[in-house]
């Protein structure tokens, strides 16, 4: 294997495996993500997509396999370590605090401090506000009012805040788990615009989605999971919707293509 620190590979997994008791949720997943690349993960419910992401973000501990991130092999003890290393996740269930304003949500758990007094450290509110505005510009997110709480924002606005949060810090990889599943048409378009902005900025992304149009619109490459295994890894130029569906449903098996790739 070539020295990973000199390549442009951001994330690589080798033989990533997860068993829950006797249930094989993920088996031997070999995956690579390069700089600036947007990769979609597709598959039926229970195919292992979310399990795969949970191993990378260390929400769960893997049974077997290796992970390289940002040039070195990593063994995160929990999601906070993964986040500190630069993996930002937009969770399906929106990890936001309703009663806080936008800057407080963006900096939740990693507040910028003016001077340190332990738990009573004084917050640098000006800095956080400025950084929030910058992050919103970078992600092209527009929200009604920075200093009002997010409780009464729409689903789309809240999702935008969650995404802008990933752009506030120097993230090296963004993972989104069905970011538009609960959104309306207009709001979905808004979130997709943000993803395009991330692409233009060269930020690598893993997108879990069931939406075929969205995946073909936004991503360079599509990885299909079926029954805990990666069954296809296709550049979008070399495939189409029907092809992907055959892999998802198992009408086509991916042995030949994977071997060729």
């Amino acid at each position, binding site marked *: 294997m070539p020295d990973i620190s000199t390549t442009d590979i951001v994330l690589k997994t080798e033989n990533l495996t997860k068993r829950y008791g006797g249930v094989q949720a993920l088996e031997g997943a070999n995956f690579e993500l390069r700089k600036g690349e947007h990769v979609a993960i597709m598959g039926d419910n229970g195919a292992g997509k979310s399990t795969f992401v949970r191993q990378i973000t260390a929400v769960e501990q893997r049974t077997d396999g290796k992970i390289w991130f940002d040039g070195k092999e990593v063994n995160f003890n929990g999601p906070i370590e993964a986040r500190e290393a630069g993996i930002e996740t937009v969770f399906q*269930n929106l990890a936001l*605090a*309703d009663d806080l304003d936008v800057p407080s949500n963006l900096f939740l758990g990693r507040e910028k401090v003016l001077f340190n007094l332990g738990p*009573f450290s004084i917050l640098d509110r000006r800095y956080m506000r400025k950084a929030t505005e910058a992050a919103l510009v970078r992600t092209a997110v527009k*929200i009604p009012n920075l200093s009002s709480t997010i409780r009464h924002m729409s689903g789309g606005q809240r999702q935008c805040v969650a995404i802008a949060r990933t752009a506030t810090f120097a993230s090296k990889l963004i993972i989104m788990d069905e970011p538009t599943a609960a959104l309306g048409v207009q709001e979905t378009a808004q979130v997709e615009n943000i993803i395009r902005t991330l692409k233009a900025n060269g930020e690598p992304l893993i997108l879990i989605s069931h939406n075929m149009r969205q995946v073909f619109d936004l991503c360079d490459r599509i990885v299909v999971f079926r029954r805990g295994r990666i069954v296809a890894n296709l550049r979008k130029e070399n495939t189409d919707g029907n092809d992907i569906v055959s892999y998802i449903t198992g009408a086509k098996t991916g042995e030949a293509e994977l071997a060729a790739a």
Partner: protein
Amino acid sequence: MAQTSHGVGGLSYDAKKRAWPAEFNVFLALIILVVVFELIGRVFLGDSFLFNTRSDVGGLFNQARLQIIILQVSIVGIIAIGVTQVIITGGIDLSSGSIVGATAMIAMSFAQVATVNGNPNPKAMFLAQGWTDLPVIVPVLVAVGCGLIAGLINGSLIAYTRIPPFIATLGMMITARGIAKWWSKGQPISFPTDSFAAISTGSRPVVIFLALAVLFQLILTYTRYGKHCYAIGSNEDAARMSGIKIANHKILVYTIAGILASLAAVVLCSKNLTAQSGMGVMYELDAIAMAVIGGVSLSGGRGSIIGTVIGALIFGVIISGFTFLRLDAYYQEMVKGVIIVGAVVLDQWRQRMRALRA
């Protein structure tokens, strides 16, 4: 903030949708209440509630009444400052009244004089040990220690055993009351030193209450601790996923509430010059009521110390107003109950309306 546009594409921006701070509504309620008492007074008694009508004292307002409005809620108000923080994190503290009782007994026994009118103090608990006429700092530190221990136990129980705060603090409520009775086998503890009695002379309880209120309002607004209070009360799972150490934070919040309850005990027994095991009964509920009237949401995440202080003032105005109208104390309690329920109903209604408009 100005109407800045953040890049291309996006959702509508409406600056007018900015809501009033919740405290404003509570303040409005306070004003209305004062006006109602003023009008009733003018019409039926020919006297003013708020303004000075006597010729032998100066000033536009009735100073004595204003002072007593705050004075009579200061002690429970100090407790309410801590209770507010607990409720903002989504918890509840039922033990504060009993912590007041236990702390008052223990602290007072370290604040006694050796001789009363030339005779040995009959009530002194530690006369034999010679722990009498101690400097004022000793009973105050003992009190803070009591509150700290009680709060630490509350917080640790809630953080580590994951039992509901209601149960943990209910246990502390009963236990601490037991300790208060056991400490002197039910006997009152009296005859404090002059320096201890000086803590609560005149309007000092008001000064202590307001100083603590300002301090903790600043802490809630400007520190990481404050931000995390709101975050945990708002969405505990999100706070945990964001790396906030929930257990440590909860222990700190309940410890602060315990210490504030013990400071209330110091002010209370310094003012009464005696400590009794029944002190502080029901204070926890009055403190919770002040917070709730002041707009602190029992489901967590919303509220402020300013709101609670205004809630306490509403309490004070009701008590003073009923005395002013020469109505019996029975009516006060009936009205207090109605106002507590009314405040929560109103708050929820306001939340629903805001959700509909958004």
